[in-house]
């Protein structure tokens, strides 16, 4: 079934009969209004319910577009699923939702049954809901006006049958738009947000903006992830030979081959250490760096994320490290601050 936003709105889960209709039948508008507020109340209740069924909810944000937010969000979900946890992935980017592609769910449509939305099952059993499931055609992004878009987000939050989850990862469009605010205000107990950045100065500048934004959202910042950090190349030469490479920016990189002549060196495509610096500046944790890996681009294209195709590869290992740093932060922030309430 293909759904347009208006169709989704009209597909309200409950039909209500109001008492006393016989003598003083409410006008059509009144009835509509009552029905709407009834639905809103139902949604509020199901959101509260969801707050309990989903243990940890993590928002993935970036200041700038194209830094790899969706790749990272998908990677985090897969990496957590690899550990045997129950994971959901919510893709709220309406203008360029690319999560379905990476999850092998290209062309999937929204599954609505009895007024509830059922997530799709992606790689490793990750439950996925994407704004793309609403689009008639992925290549023509819809321009929804603000209220419709935000209404759809609220519906996405309230009407999805996630079941019990250990983690829900939420991917956003880039920048400091309305979407994170809507989610932060509608979803109770958000564990926190992670900020994805690349090491370039511009991206870092934008990350500063998003950290300031994070503060205004009143959601904890779990930390900063540096994506596309370094690119590691491997080579073969004479055993124990010293290798000299001319890296980006005229920097010389040295490596030494091992006994069998194998060597590797990491090139910093962009400036190194930017993520660490910004997390120091803002006094938030640094969650780790993810390497530049052309396999991510391929994976995005052929529908198999790097973590699935190479679960033991360097990128998957880097993701596992970031995930363990996130878990530490989540545990820290959910441990009660030793407050006695009487």
């Amino acid at each position, binding site marked *: 079934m293909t759904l347009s936003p208006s169709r989704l709105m009209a597909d309200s889960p409950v039909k209500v009969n109001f008492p006393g209709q016989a003598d003083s039948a409410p006008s059509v508008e009144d009835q509509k209004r009552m029905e709407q507020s009834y639905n809103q109340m139902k949604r509020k209740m199901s959101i509260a319910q969801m707050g309990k069924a989903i243990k940890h909810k993590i928002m993935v944000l970036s200041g700038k577009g194209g830094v790899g937010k969706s790749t990272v969000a998908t990677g985090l979900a897969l990496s957590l699923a690899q550990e045997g946890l129950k994971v959901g992935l919510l893709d709220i980017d309406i203008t360029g939702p690319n999560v379905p592609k990476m999850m092998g769910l290209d062309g999937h449509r929204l599954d609505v049954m009895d007024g509830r939305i059922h997530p799709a099952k992606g790689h490793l059993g990750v439950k996925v809901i994407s704004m793309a499931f609403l689009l008639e055609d992925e290549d023509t992004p819809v321009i929804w006006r603000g209220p419709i878009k935000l209404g759809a987000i609220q519906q996405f939050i309230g009407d999805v049958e996630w079941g019990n989850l250990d983690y829900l990862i939420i991917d956003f469009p880039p920048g*400091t738009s*309305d979407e994170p*605010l809507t989610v932060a*205000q509608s979803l*109770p*107990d958000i*564990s*926190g947000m992670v900020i994805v950045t690349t090491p370039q100065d511009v991206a870092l500048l934008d990350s500063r903006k998003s950290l300031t*934004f994070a503060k*205004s*959202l*009143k959601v*904890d910042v779990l930390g900063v992830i540096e994506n596309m950090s370094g690119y590691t190349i491997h080579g073969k030469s004479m055993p124990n030979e010293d290798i000299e490479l001319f890296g980006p920016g005229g920097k010389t990189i040295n490596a030494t081959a091992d006994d069998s002549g194998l060597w590797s060196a990491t090139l910093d495509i962009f400036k190194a250490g930017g993520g660490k610096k910004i997390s120091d500046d803002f006094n938030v944790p640094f969650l780790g760096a993810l390497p530049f890996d052309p396999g991510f681009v391929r994976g995005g294209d052929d529908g198999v994320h790097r973590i699935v195709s190479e679960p033991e590869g360097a990128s998957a290992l880097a993701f596992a490290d970031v995930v363990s740093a996130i878990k530490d932060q989540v545990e*820290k*922030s*959910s*441990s*009660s*601050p*030793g*407050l*006695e*309430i*009487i």
Partner: protein
Amino acid sequence: MPQLTRLERRDTDMVLDWDDGTNHTIPYDDIRHACPCASCSPQRNEDETSMMLRHTIENLPREKPTVRTIGNYALSFEWVQGCSSGIYRFERLWKLGEKQDPDGGKTYVHGAW
């Protein structure tokens, strides 16, 4: 800022104990009036609407709220009647206890992030 160690709910106010030895007593009406949610906040921007908000709150039936911790940084207060949406950062509670303007004199502008 000191850490909140104990919160005692009384009939019309609550007592907050902080780990530096400070104690605050905050009336529930003050807590409610300082609700940081997007619907209550703008009402405090103008004296007139702020007073109306205050008036509405004072006319609500007396009740003890359910208090929940939000992460390690805030509390929420759930009331049977009236607004329960606000997430109160500990800083906010401290300011209220110290009788400082919890909004820091800033007006609330929706969407100005």
